[in-house]
Each structure stands twice: as C-alpha cells, then as structure tokens.
C-alpha cells in the first residue's frame, strides 16, 4: 500500500454529506474525504483540465456518488469514470434516494460497484454507512492503472 485511499464524495446535499462523513468516521475510517457539492467541480477534479484524468494516475480513489445533482446527473459522471482508462478501476459507490429498479439496473450496467439507497430511517442509514466504512477498511483499492 503505497498511498492511502482517498474518498471522493460527490453529494449536493450538504446535510447528507455531513451525515455520511460522520458515520464513516464513526466506523473508524480516517481516510481523506474530498467533498464536492456539484457535478462540474467533481468532474474538473477527477479529469483535470485536459479531461484525461491523467493527474490521478496511480492514485487509489473511491468515489461516493449521488445520482441527483443540480448540474449533471450522477449517471453521466459514472459513465465517464468507467470509460476513463486512469479511473475505471476506482470503485464507485452510488448513494442515492432512488430505489427505482430501472435506475439501479442502469447504474450496474454502467459499472457501479455498490448501490445504496438512502433510507429515511436514520438508524438503517447510519448502519449502512458504517457498514460501508467497514467495507472501506477492508477492501483493496487498486492504484489507478497506468
């Protein structure tokens, strides 16, 4: 493990972002979390100025993605990440309020690794996020391929 995993959180709702972060921390994960509240900033960060994503070559990333973003759809970001040769190995966790089966299917088709529905029931939500935190602590994220 040359570099610790960086968590990229793309979530327009700051409340959700805070709750997610809090619960991740509660599960004992201390990795860097870089939050983005809109799709454009996230895309700029991920793919860089030239849109090639070469800046993150060799970095270990994990992307937490909300599907409902004000400026672009999460699906679009997912598609671009999975088509980018430097980023495609980064696991993507889709975290959204939609439990529509079509939407879930679409996300998996585009290469999403985990799909989590945000339940209103906070206990199960917190639990899910903590489980996710545990998951983060054990999974091996490959450094983005050269």
């Amino acid at each position, binding site marked *: 493990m040359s570099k610790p995993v960086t968590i990229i959180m793309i979530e327009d*709702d700051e409340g959700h972002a805070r*709750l997610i972060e809090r619960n991740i921390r509660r599960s004992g994960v201390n990795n860097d979390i870089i939050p983005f509240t809109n799709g454009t900033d996230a895309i700029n960060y991920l793919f860089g100025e030239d849109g090639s994503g070469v800046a993150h070559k060799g970095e270990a990333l994990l992307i937490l993605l909300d599907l*409902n973003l004000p400026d672009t759809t999460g699906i679009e970001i997912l598609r671009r990440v999975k088509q980018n040769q430097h980023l495609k190995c980064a696991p993507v966790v889709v975290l959204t*309020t939609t439990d529509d089966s079509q939407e879930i299917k679409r996300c998996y088709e585009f290469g999403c690794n985990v799909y989590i529905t945000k339940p209103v029931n906070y206990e199960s939500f*917190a639990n899910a996020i903590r489980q996710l935190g545990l998951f983060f602590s054990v999974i091996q994220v490959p450094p983005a391929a050269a």
Partner: protein
Amino acid sequence: MSQAIVTPDATRQRAIGQIVLLAAGVLVLVLVSASSVILVNQARKDNAWVVHTVEVENQISTLLLQIRRAESAARGYLLTSDPQFLTEHEYARATILPDVDKLTRLAGDNSVQIENSRQLRAPVEARLAEFAKAIDFVKRNDIPGGIAMLRQPGASDSVQRINEVATAMRTEEDRLFALRTATADHTQLLASVVTVAGSALVIALAGISMVLVRRSARARDQAEMLLRHNNLNLEATVDDRTAELREANNEIQRFAYIVSHDLRSPLVNIMGFTSELEELRHDIFRRIATLSREEVAASALPLVPGAIEPALEGQDKQLSQDFAEALGFIKSSIAKMDRLITAILNLTREGRREFEPVRIDTRELIEGIVATVAHQAAEAQAQIRIEPLPDIVSDRLALEQIFSNLIDNALKYVRPGMPCDIAIRGRTKLGFAIFEIADNGRGIDPKDHMRIFDLFRRAGAQDRPGQGIGLAHVRALVRRLGGTISLQSALNQGSTFTLTLPIAWSASNRNKDT
C-alpha cells in the same frame, strides 16, 4: 365546412319521393296491363259481333239463293217436266225452312231482327206452298194452270214480301255492321292509345327514377366523401389530443416522481439530524446529571457506569422529557411523511409499469385473494360470496391489486355488530365486463363519493388504519386498464363498487411510451 350537409329531413323526403315514384310506376304498369287485357277482350268481342253480322247477312243471302233455286227449279220443271228439275227443287226446298230457322236463331240477339225473321217465315212458307201447288199442277199435267198459278198476283206478293223483309234485315244488319265495326275500331284505337300512353308514362317514370337515383347516388358519394374526410379529421384530432394527454400525463408522472424524490432528500437530513440531536440529547443530559451530581458532592446515589439514562431530578428531568417528546413528534411526523411520499412514488411507478394482457380466470383470481384475507374475514365474521364471473383479458397484477383493495376495504369498514356479507357479482355488456363488489358495511356518505378516490383522502370515522391510498390506486389502475369505477352507497347502507372493464383489453397506445 361550406358543403351542403345533407340534412336527415331532405334524405327522408328523397326516400319518400322515390317510394312514391316506384309505387306510381308499378300502378301505371298494372293499370296499363289490366286495361290492355280488358280492351283486347273487348276488341275480340266486338270483332265477334262484326263476324256475327256478316254471318247473318250471309245467311240471308243463302236463304234468298235457296228460294231462287227452288223457284227456278220449279219453273224449269213447269216448262220441261223434267224430273231432274223436280229433284233439284225438292233439294232446295228442303234447305229453305232450316235456313229460316238458322237465320232466326242467328238473328236472335236483336229484337228488330227477331221480329223481321218472324215476319220472314210466313211469306217464305206461303211461297213454298205456291211452289208445291204449281208442281202439283204439273203432276196433274196441268202445266198452264201451274204457270198461271205462279203468275197469280198473290204469288208475287209473297216474293215481294220476302224481298222486303230480307232487305229490311240486310239494312238492319248493315246498320249493325257499321255500328259494330265502329265500336271495334274504337276499342282497338283505345287499346293502342292506352298502351302507348301507359308505355310513355312508364318510360317517363323510369326516366325520373333514373335521374333521382343518379342524384341520390351523387349525394351519397358526396356524403361518403364528407364522412371520410371527417373521419380522417377526427382521427387526426383524436391522435393530437391523445398525444397531448399522454404528454400531460407523462409530465404529471415525472413531476410526481421528481417531487416525491426531491422531498425525500431533505427528509433524510431532517431524520438524520434529528437522530443526531437525540444523540446530543443523551450527551447533554448525561453531562447535566454528572455536573449536578458533582455539585451535590456527597451524593447518595453513585453513578452507574454505562447507564443510558442517568438519573435526573426535578426541572432537569422535566426538560429531558420535553426534549424527548418533541423529538418523538418530529420522528413520527417524518415517518408519516415518508410513508406518504413512498405512496406517491409507488403510484407513479405503477403508472409507469408496463401492463401485460393475459387471459384471466376471474373466479380463480378472486378466490386467491379471498384466501389471503381469510384471517381478516374470520375476524370480521365475514361471508364472501363469489357469484359467476366473466373471464377477461387484462393485466393480472393490476386486477389482483384492484380486487384485493376493494375486498380489503369491504372487510375493513364493517358495520359494528353486524356480520359482514360481501358479494362479488359479474356480467357482461357490449364488450365490457361489469363487476360489482357489494358489502353491507358502514357505507359512505354521498358527499364523499368523489373524494374517496382522491389520494390521501378518506371518509367517515377515522378509526381504521390507512393512508387514503387504496382507492386512488384502484382508480388509477382501472383507468389504465381502459375501464371505469363507480360507487353506490349511503351511510349505514353498505357500499357497492361497480367496476367496468373491457373484456379483451389489449396493451393499447396507453402503454406505448411509458
């Protein structure tokens, strides 16, 4: 639309005109035929009379000829005494009286001629007697006596008399002949006139009919064209409207989806941070408890380590309870809101589900539903009667939801102290199956009949759990299946939900773009 639209009145008038025309044509034909037959018969009769006249004249001539023959033979005999003349005379003589009879018979149709022929008989017989006398003279070889006898003035009297009567008869027959010929001619003329006139009339009527038929054919063609045109227009209009409606419907669906979806997002926060607050509350009150205990240094109650709710006293305890109560209300409200939003989401999702028409054994389907509610039915002491039901082609899942919601409601809203009785009936009418779910439950006030099909609306005493979603869902499903639902009910009189569904529903245009 500027074309002359054919009014029903004009059409009826034209139809009546055509019928009258046809009737007139038939009548004329019948009349012409009948009068032709009558006239031809008449003409034949008239001709027979003409022939009869000729026969009478002929008979008169024959009679006169025979008399002359008898006379000349008698004369010959007087002059020569040749018996051959006598034979000839006898022969002629023998025919005379039958000829007179025949003439009398022939002329029997006319009183004048009867009289004449009767008059004829006497002079003829007198003449014959003269012949006999003259021949008698010869036989007695008194030839000059015989000749003198024939020359007697009396003799010429009878000859003259015969001639007079014969002439009179001839004259009469000539008159009759002229009369009868004229009549026959007249009849024939009449016959031909009638035939020609009738034919002309028939031809004229046929002509008028043809003109009328052509005109009505043209009118029909025009009407057909108009109809086709209108149909096309109508189809286009219907298509347009359908497309608009579908668009509007889709928009509402999307709207509902987005709204419910976006409503959920802040709800996650509210719930999340409320839970965080709860955590904080624990921390705060634990600290308060700890602090107050430290102040009361010589505390009798030692803090139990790990206790979730440290013991609080007086005002602090009240505060903590108020806090917990407020949080409890917030959480239960959020839970309720979440259920409502979930309901809307499910409804919109149901609106987007693709229906699949299959043949459904309705009875079996309802028996299945009844089996699943058997427990509730037993609790309500309910009797569910399934009468013969028509099978239909529809979406199985949707139909299951419709019937199960309606039966559920019937079991839920029973009249207290009365065993529940539910009847499910069915019949078909004009391509639609009509189902009735009738109960003897508490009934619904007529002023609420429209309301209860709305989302989140309920009627009557709110003493049963529910969100007011079932009937809204039922109505949405029924509409998508191309049917309607209606309700007959009054308070405490039970309710009857009438469901009208197409017998053979096909996944029509409603499904195309969902």
